[in-house]
């Protein structure tokens, strides 16, 4: 009874407040009313056209028929087993991380289910669907276990530790799995796999490079500071695609023949360029963090008797890096988008796979479907990362201090 009585006025209130909300937010004056009507017309038109295309007009057969190419490119038949363990680990880590440091809202759950329905409807079939399901089950177990498992504080701490180590170990494990025991040459990597590998290797190598460059640029030694500054500014002056072309045409003639470095695969050369390029940009981000650090920190560390190396690694870097985490995630997003540029090197990444499917006689004229799909994949990853960045920003309290 009590609850019903409480509900009754609330509904009435909701209708009144809905009217007030509409008046306040959509029809506050004549200009706003006109704007609202025009915007509604525009939104309805766009959404209608989009839904009509996606659900009625489009023929998604082109994606379905090429799902292997889209996922892994020209990866040799029979070697697919190398890809699955990293996918499973990734699923587990996502589940664990969400369980440990976050919570899936109803909306988030809907998005995840939609994404899974999309993936299983379009990308996985037969054995692959089963193998992919393993990853989903692992992720769900990780999430439910940490969120609802009533773990002891010690077990939770252990799980957090394992998750951190897992994230750090994911990339080395993937590289090793792809390359060990008569592995797959980098030139045969393709599709989404290639984009992911280029972006993660680029950021993983670019991060330490960036820190070293930032320290070099703020160094008090002119012999170090000047060349580092020239290097950073030179890299940032040219477009990435020019540097990638440099990797293709010029780099081989400058590599020493030591360890057959002059015969490096074009994919590896592209990774080198992406790392150096990302490093130069990260250096500027980290330099911002270094300069934002109060002087007192270094002076206090000096007073405690720490030496230069200790001050840098124990006092300066941890604080500087913490404050630039969101900017670093943005850099990763931009690197993820920039992996499309290896298109120019005739590498078989996702966008070029899309372009290639359009040459198949069955699918001529399907460019709208293909490019919408390609855009959606890139967008989904980048958007998820940007949400993550905003979350970290909120948790660190950056900008509110």
């Amino acid at each position, binding site marked *: 009874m009590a609850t019903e009585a409480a509900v009754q006025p609330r509904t009435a209130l909701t209708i009144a407040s809905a009217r007030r909300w509409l008046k306040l*937010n*959509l029809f*506050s004056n004549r*200009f*706003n009313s006109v*704007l*609202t009507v025009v*915007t*509604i017309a*525009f*939104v309805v038109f766009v959404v209608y056209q989009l839904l009509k295309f996606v659900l009625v007009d489009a023929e998604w057969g082109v994606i379905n028929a090429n799902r292997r190419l889209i996922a892994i490119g020209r990866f040799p038949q029979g070697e697919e087993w190398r890809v699955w363990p990293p996918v499973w680990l990734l699923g587990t880590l996502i589940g664990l991380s969400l369980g440990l440091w976050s919570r899936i809202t109803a909306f988030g759950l809907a998005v995840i289910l939609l994404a899974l329905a999309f993936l299983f409807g379009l990308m996985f079939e037969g054995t692959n669907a089963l193998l992919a399901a393993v990853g989903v089950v692992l992720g769900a177990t990780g999430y439910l276990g940490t969120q609802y498992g009533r773990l002891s504080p010690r077990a939770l701490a252990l799980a957090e530790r394992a998750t951190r180590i897992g994230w750090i170990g994911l990339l080395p494990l993937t590289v090793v799995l792809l390359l060990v025991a008569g592995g797959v040459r980098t030139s045969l990597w393709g599709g989404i796999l290639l984009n992911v590998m280029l972006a993660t290797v680029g950021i993983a190598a670019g991060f330490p490079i960036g820190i070293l460059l930032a320290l070099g640029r703020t160094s*008090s*030694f*002119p*012999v*170090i500071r000047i*060349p580092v500054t020239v290097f950073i500014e*030179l890299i940032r*002056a*040219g*477009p*990435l*695609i*020019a540097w990638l*072309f*440099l990797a293709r*045409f*010029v780099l081989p*003639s*400058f590599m*020493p023949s030591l360890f057959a470095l002059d015969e490096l695969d074009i994919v590896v050369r592209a990774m080198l360029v992406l790392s150096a390029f990302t490093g130069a940009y990260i250096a500027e981000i980290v330099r911002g963090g270094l300069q934002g650090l109060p002087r007192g920190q270094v002076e206090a560390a000096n007073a405690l008797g720490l030496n230069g190396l200790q001050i840098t690694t124990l006092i300066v870097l941890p604080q500087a890096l913490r404050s630039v985490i969101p900017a670093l995630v943005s850099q990763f*997003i931009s690197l993820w*988008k*920039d992996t*499309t*540029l290896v*298109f*120019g090197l005739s590498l078989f990444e996702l*966008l070029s796979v899309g*372009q290639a499917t359009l040459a198949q006689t069955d699918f001529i004229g399907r*460019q*709208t479907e293909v*490019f919408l799909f*390609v*855009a959606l994949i*890139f*967008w989904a990853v*980048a*958007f998820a990362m*940007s949400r993550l960045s905003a979350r970290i920003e909120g948790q660190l309290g950056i900008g509110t201090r």
Partner: protein
Amino acid sequence: MATLSTPAEPPPPFLRSSKGRRFLIQAAAAGVLLLFVAYLFDRASKLELGLGFMDERTGFALANQWITTFESNDSRWVAYGAGVFNTIRIVAVGIVLATILGVVMGVARLSSNWLVSRLATVYVEVIRNTPLLVQIVFWHSVVLLQLPRISEAVNVGEVVYISNRALAIPWPQERGSLAVVWVILALVALVVAAWVRNRRLVEEAETGRSTHANLYGIGVFLVLATGAYVATGLPVGIDVPELTFNDTGTTQNYVGGIKITPEFAALLFALVFYTGSFITEIVRGSIQSLPRGQSEAAAALGLSGYQRMTLVILPQALRTMIPAVTNQYLNLSKNSSLAIVIGYSELFLVSSTILNNAGRAIPTFTLIIGTYLTLNLLISAAMNWLNRRVQSARL
């Protein structure tokens, strides 16, 4: 006693003093650097480094030319120049349009109208998180190449034609020899109008009476420019595009006006929407960083929402956003190199074609990077000048 007799600590040997360590570290770094540079020079000396090949005949034709009249018999320098001009063309138009879009969407993002601010947010989140290259290819092959063929070109009132070969629009065309004179006179009229406007603004500030400065400025410009136009004998006309037909009566091509090719348009749209989404966030950020009191005080003075935005909020926000926007302009100019994928013949496409033909990688790359560096420095210099002017302006 013991403490007194302790002799002063001898200074450490030079190499163990802090000065000595600095010297050692720098010497080591310099040594490594020298070795590295020597290695690079050694490698480079085995390659051809001269720019002599740029004087040779180019041997390929360029599409997407406007004003430039490059032909395949011209030297590679001329081709390169045409490419640089095409880059400057797209960058200039792109910067202007991206700024307008960014400011409009940035204001929309903070609109009190819930729907408008949501729409602006969706625009930013969709465009910013999708690779530019995908957007360029999308505009090119999904939107612009799907337009009707030229034989079925959409005819907008006999003045604008839309087809997948090009968008043809009317364009000014000089009719007499005095066109240049008129352009110069019009520029003089602009300067005079600006002076008149400034004078009236000063008067307004001193007396407090409204002097209608903008109205006077525009009026002075229109009167002077029209007068000059008549005096020089109507030297500039409007060239309207027309369709040409072959013997069987099907449409063949456009004549006259100006043709905006799908390549130019695709690159322009993609660059403008992409860069615009970043500028939107910069504008939003700098508006939000203004103290709330500014908007409240303006409201208390009785200014309307539009006046608050254009007279109080934006002028102040613009001051803080110039450095960040400059970065986006530099990104836009570098991103224009992605045109290579759809074949808009700008600097990078032209030079990589030259590279393919002549095979002189190092000189060509030095040229490419040098040109982008120069372009970026010019943009930075212009924006720094603007920044200094804006920062020193009276409020």
